[in-house]
């Protein structure tokens, strides 16, 4: 599945034991999105 992120606002929600928020944000940002919030959750 592809997603066009250019010009979109993105909330990057990550998980500590998966992909953390900053890594999601970096990908979204490089794909042209404006990252408005970055958070990482810890489920344990």
């Amino acid at each position: 599945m592809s997603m066009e992120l250019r010009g979109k606002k993105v909330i990057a929600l990550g998980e500590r034991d998966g992909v953390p928020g900053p890594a999601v944000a970096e990908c979204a940002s490089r794909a042209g999105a404006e990252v408005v919030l970055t958070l990482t959750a810890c489920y344990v």
Partner: protein
Amino acid sequence: MPVIRAVSLVLAHVPSLVRLGSKPLRALREVEQPIDYLRPYLRDWGAACAYAPNQVFIGNVGVDDLAARPTPWHRHPVADAGRFGPDGEIMPEDEFLGLLAACDGFDLLALTGEVADRARSTLDAHPVVGRESGRPAVPAGVATAVLDQRIARHRAVPLVGGDGRLLGAMLPGHEDDDTLTGQVLLENLACKATAALALRHLLARPGAIAATDVRYVINCGEEAVGDRYQRGGGNVAKAVAEWTGCARATGSDVKAFCSGPMHALMLAGALVRAALYDDVVVVAGGSLAKLGMKFQGHVKHAMPIVEDVLAGFAVHVARDDGVSPVLRLDAIGRHEVGSGSAPLAVMKALYSEPLARVGLTLLDVDRFSLELHNPEATEPAGSGNVPLNNYRTLASLAVVQKLIAREGIDDFVRTRGMPGFSPTQGHIASAIPYLGHARRGLTEGRLTRTMFAGKGSLFLGRMTQLPDGLSLVLERNG
């Protein structure tokens, strides 16, 4: 190099305190009698003791034996489960309440007369924290009417048993300090008591260091002990040292969320290596706030709330004795500020880079101890199997480094990993619970090298988006 001379791991079964975990407190705020809601899902001590992951925690059952056992573990109790194991014990609640009261130097926790009397008689006969250990006595109980008054007028937190009866109440430490409420102090006291229990177990071992020979204690529990002017000021280490009779010790707290224990062990090793101290003890108590953290998932699946235990541990780090496993200070894995937060970057920083530094690869490590959260606690709540996910990511790193073929991932996970068996007690679940097994395997068993890695969720404190992580290598001596 410093060595890991002794390890203890303890659990305290506290079903009545599940109600006071952070999640149950918030989720059941609108429920008139939370304990009535929780009761069908609370286990008695016998069930908690026979629960296979808890038996692994205290060293009675091996990690490979656990992997071979039928699941769900809560439906397949261990037939010959014991309260005591080579690493510690699973203490029943009625005794632990007495231990809590005996750890309270400010008379803020009061038990009913019946509860106090029962706790005193059983706790006084305890092999490790009995009256002969020199600990403070379990204070006399208080009339229920007095407790009711403390709850109604002085904002004491009621302790309610599974049967709905009042067990006791915890007063605030100050009438106008949010860091000294009854709830906060009960959490801190639970942390102190479980850490102290673990240290008493360690000190009671045959051939153990004398309490008065312990010169420095590092606490890495996560509770923020302090007051309104220095929230989290510390020093639980010194409180635990005092309670356990380490009269010539001082100490301090080391905090890094769930990677705190790894930092603390590294620092203990460095203090010994530097010859500042010959013997350093690292301790941590449990997290009351995390009791019942996933209880909604357990209720939804009509299973027992398995997050009904507090955990604690103690580790004696000492000068090389020629026998005990060596803590390789030249192979510390560090997640640095610039390491990046992508999963593979974290894995490289914690595993492959430190091993490569000393000429080793992932295949030179017999067992990796990572996040060891019991999947039976997390999966019903949709949080997945944390250890398995992490082991698979680690195995993927081995594939990337061409150490194993892609088809070898499952075998890598099975032989170099282990099932999660730790209660979801944060910093303690972070690699530490395997330490007792590793020490035995590296001395009496067939292990040559083990690696421990803890990860900390620093971002939860809203001061940085960074995670944290630190890893340690333990090797057979000689």
